[in-house]
């Protein structure tokens, strides 16, 4: 049997989880708000902890180790915090501009390879050698890429032969959307199954899960039928 700590973790977790699931009922409820604010509060606390630790471990420890350049991070950081006083908020524009510039630089420097050149290179494939299956695969890939790229042309009117190519490209795109949707569903179902597994293994957790489900469902239905749901849901 579990100790009291473990038991409390499962009881509180299962109950709050079911409160969160109550959003599926389609109406806002105090149970959902309880779960939402609990998560929001603790998650913000977690964000504070993570960032303060980052400032310490990367910033302070780094500066102490002689990496004085990092003190610019603190200077620019203070310039941003000045925004708390709206009158001086313009001071924060420089650190924001630097962050934005380096963010774009960091992203764009590799995306040209992974997102463009490598994708062209990957489409240049053998179309006349290999097994029947390989040929089918290679031709399909080449056709899909060549037919869907024109669909993404925005400055040319898609009519005539180009229009037909783009139309076929659009159809091919919908086939891929269907396949992709199904794959994504598998993933999401996996998340839910995995979560439920956490509350059904080992066996002693099962009654807690089932009871939490029944309590929250009964509560929300009862509140809804007695018109208390709207009156107890927080305002925004």
């Amino acid at each position, binding site marked *: 049997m579990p100790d009291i700590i473990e038991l409390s973790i499962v009881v509180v977790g299962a109950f709050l989880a079911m409160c969160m699931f109550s959003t599926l009922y389609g109406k806002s409820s105090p149970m959902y708000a309880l779960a939402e604010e609990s998560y929001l509060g603790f998650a913000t606390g977690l964000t504070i902890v993570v960032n303060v630790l980052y400032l310490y471990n990367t910033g302070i*420890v780094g500066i102490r180790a002689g990496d004085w350049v990092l003190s610019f991070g603190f200077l620019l950081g203070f310039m941003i915090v000045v925004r708390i006083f709206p009158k001086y908020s313009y001071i924060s524009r420089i650190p924001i501009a630097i962050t934005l510039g380096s963010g774009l630089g*960091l992203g764009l420097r590799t995306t040209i390879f992974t997102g463009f050149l490598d*994708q062209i290179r990957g489409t240049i494939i053998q179309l006349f050698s290999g097994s029947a299956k390989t040929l089918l695969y290679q031709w399909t890939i080449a056709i899909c890429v060549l037919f869907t790229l024109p669909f993404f042309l925005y400055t040319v009117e898609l009519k005539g032969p180009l229009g037909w190519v783009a139309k076929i490209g659009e159809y091919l795109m919908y086939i891929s959307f269907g396949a992709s949707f199904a794959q994504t569903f598998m*993933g999401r*179902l*996996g998340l839910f*199954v*995995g979560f439920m597994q956490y509350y*059904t293994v080992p066996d002693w957790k099962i009654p807690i899960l089932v009871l939490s489900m029944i309590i929250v469902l009964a509560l929300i239905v009862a509140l809804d039928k007695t018109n208390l749901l709207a009156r107890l849901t927080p305002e925004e």
Partner: protein
Amino acid sequence: MSVSDEKEKSIFRYLSEYDRRIIYFLLFIVVVGPLISPIAMPISVSPDSKQYYDVLRTLGSNDIVLTVLDTEFSGYMELQSGVIASTRMIIEKESKMAVAISHPEATIIPDILFGALKDLMDAHHYTYGDSYLVLGYIYQNEASVASSAEDFQGFVRQDWQGRPIKGTFLEQVRSWKDISLIVSHTTGILSGSVMNHFALRGTRMIVNCIGGMIPGQKTYLNTGILKAVLPAMRGGAELESLIGIRGLGTKAMDAFTLGHYMLIAFIIIGNIGYFGYARPRAQKARTGG
């Protein structure tokens, strides 16, 4: 219109416009039911999982593997069978392993993971410091990934507990070149950055990703940037089957099967309702009937 027509129409209408909460309720039942009372349906192994297994099989005791837990705790729920099975293989091959984390919620995963593999680790004398290290939440952003790829020693000075990495197997890791394999268990937080800063330079990288990421990751697999992709929980179950264990992934497959079949049933029902009610009604409205 006859009475039977009226009745038939109302059935189609129901099939077309039922309350979506019915789907929600039934999905709960078909998932929780088999988890409480397993059926043990058989499964097959896909080529993707086999490829992933083959990459892990090439590892040796001199290799250094960087395992990246690039997931929230919620994502771990889907990835865990693949995480445990992959780590099991790394331990069996006695390769050195460093665990890096890219989300604060994942910081408690190493405890759960190594707890689940304790017996195997004891059998292979796989000990902390000598065989593996947990670096903790070191990947907060792309900047940190870039730093570790370029100057590993400058970036990683200590482990999760604050103990210096000097004197451990990680001392020989200077940059991306010294990592034999990256195993990224990912929901997509920073796996793109890891790929850009490590795999694109030449580090071998395999990915155990959530279902929604599979098509995207396959593109990188096809261009050779990634060496293998393990497709989510089902991939985890298949990897378990390849290494001959019955783990969490295998046990979840009944719920998985029933969840999919339920959705297929609803698609069929929806289309019966559409052709029996919604479509004729729309046509009637168009023709002014």
